[in-house]
């Protein structure tokens, strides 16, 4: 028979948060956002570097099921997620999530669609375009989601 034991730990964090001083919520959020602004150029450069690596990796991707190649692309895309929101291109984060979904579905189901991956890589570059109009972004993201969903486990 399995045993279950409950304990009720006291976290010091709760006490520390209540200590006098500190910051008001509004002030803290402003400071954090201002800090993130300083990372804009770094995040954009990182996303461009990852994109270039992804384009090269896509060029090497096999014509038949290439698990190692897809794993490499998954890693590159996953490492970029989060940087888009910081550098003012949140759609890139969504696009990269779609790419991760697609590659994960393909690898899980052991099926292959090289062109679908290519669509995602090309969309990544498109979404990096500064000043892309919002009305142009939505259909791109919807299309990427559609491509990923095609291979989602049923």
């Amino acid at each position, binding site marked *: 028979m*399995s*045993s*279950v*034991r*409950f*304990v*009720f*730990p*006291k*976290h*010091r*964090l*709760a006490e*520390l*948060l*209540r*200590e*006098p*001083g*500190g*910051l*008001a*919520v*509004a002030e*803290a*959020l402003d*400071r*954090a*956002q*201002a*800090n*993130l602004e*300083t*990372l804009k150029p*770094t*995040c954009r450069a*990182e996303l461009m570097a990852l994109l270039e690596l992804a384009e090269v990796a896509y060029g090497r991707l096999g014509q038949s099921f290439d698990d190692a190649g897809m*794993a490499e692309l*998954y*890693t590159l*895309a*996953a*490492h*970029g*997620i*989060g*940087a*888009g*929101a*910081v550098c003012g291109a*949140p759609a890139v*984060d969504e696009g*990269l*999530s779609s790419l*991760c979904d697609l590659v*994960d*579905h393909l*690898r*899980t189901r052991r099926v292959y669609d090289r062109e679908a991956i290519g669509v995602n890589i090309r969309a990544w570059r498109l979404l990096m375009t500064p000043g892309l109009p919002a009305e142009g972004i939505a259909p791109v993201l919807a299309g990427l989601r559609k491509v990923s969903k095609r291979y989602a*486990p049923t």
Partner: protein
Amino acid sequence: MALDPASRARFNLERAAILLLDDTPVGMSILVQIVTGLGAKQLYRCTTVEQAQEVAVSQQIDLAIVDSLSPSGGGYDFIKWMRHNAAEPNCYTPVLVTTAHTPASDVTRARDCGGHILIKKPIAPMVMLERIIWVSKEGRTFLYSDGYVGPDRRFRDEPPPGGGRRREDRAPATPNSDEEIALGALGSKPKALKAS
């Protein structure tokens, strides 16, 4: 977990020892900028599981923000290691798990590693603050079973269907809304408890 972004309620992270684990320079920079903006000053920045383990055995940690380290999922392994191997109080430390993407093969691992809550990237400062306040809430049961060590994952105080189980087998009472959780952690009186 809605917290009013214009709130003047105060909180203090200055003396909290926070372990950060992220293996990408940009991911770590984003985390650092967010938590320092929120007032944290004592950070342990780790880029590998080994570094994080070293910190977890040598320092008292009040909060850990651990990336899953996709695609290896090493972050989940670290949390599981901490729950099983770290000495008190670190084995109970609140853990926020961040992830860019969780592959289908890792969903169970993410669920069972013993983290308190999962945050999907991109991470907004507001989301991070809400989660920090939520995990700091006292009274969360910690559970040891054959297959799982970590915070009780049940969120609501509802008896099992049909009832009949022992009182101590149930999750502790939780406030009615996420806002109450946040306000409670900040030392404010939850709305539902205000005298009419």
